């Protein structure tokens, strides 16, 4: 298999995306106040976190050049773990 690294330009755009997503995380999580989060915001936090983790795996760690099976394994595992965490928080609000 050929493992070609992402170009500096691609890495820079990934960094920009990660910074924007972090701001999204802070806004969704009301980082400057103590108000409670709705189920929808909890779900948004989980999704943004999953996307950020995948960007780091696929570009910073170059997982995108690995086989499809490995990509699915990592994305599924993180999706399941984050899904369980978000479900626990949402169910806890009921």
């Amino acid at each position, binding site marked *: 298999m050929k493992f070609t690294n992402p170009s500096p330009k691609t890495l820079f755009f990934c960094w920009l995306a990660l910074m924007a997503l972090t701001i999204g995380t802070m806004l969704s999580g009301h980082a400057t106040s103590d108000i409670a989060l709705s189920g929808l915001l909890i779900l948004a936090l989980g999704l943004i976190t999953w996307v950020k983790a995948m960007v*780091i795996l696929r570009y910073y760690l170059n997982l995108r050049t690995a086989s499809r099976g490995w990509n699915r394994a990592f994305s599924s595992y993180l999706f399941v*773990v984050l899904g369980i965490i978000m479900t626990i928080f949402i169910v806890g609000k009921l």
Partner: protein
Amino acid sequence: MSKVQDDWGALSRLPGNPMMWVLIWSELVVFGVSFIGFAVAHVLHPEIFISSQNHLNRFLGGVNTMVLITSGLCAALAVTARQNGKRRLMRLWLGAAVVLGCVFLWVKFLEYGEKFSQGIGLETNMFYTLYFLLTGFHAFHVVFGIIILIIVGWKDSVENIEIGTTFWHMVDLIWIILFPLIYLLR
């Protein structure tokens, strides 16, 4: 991550050193279980967790996330520079990654210092026990990662740089999940 591995079975289909991916899986499983445990404890004791969490500086936690993400970019650019034979540039990027790692630790140190000065410690309540254990365990990884980056910057073969930066990205990945879980979810 350019080296093609020969006889590692399915692990050969991953970029870089296969053993680093075994480490990444191990860390993701250990932290994953801990994160789910933290979520369960939070839901079982919401009053303790939310009132304690409200004393954390959420904004500073977000800023620290940006610091670590930027440090990850520097580490990734160091790999590209080394593969292109630009060793001086590689050392500059690695140096920047190390400095930003130290900034992350400094912010954590300030956070811990503030809590200790308020008389808050590991045994204050269940939230702070888990907060100090999880963030402290992660901070140890950051310290170890900085040491590794310094070593690979010195012994700077392409493979060493790839191994060192892989560890650094793993530390980044764990924090990406740790930050919303401990600071934001409520």
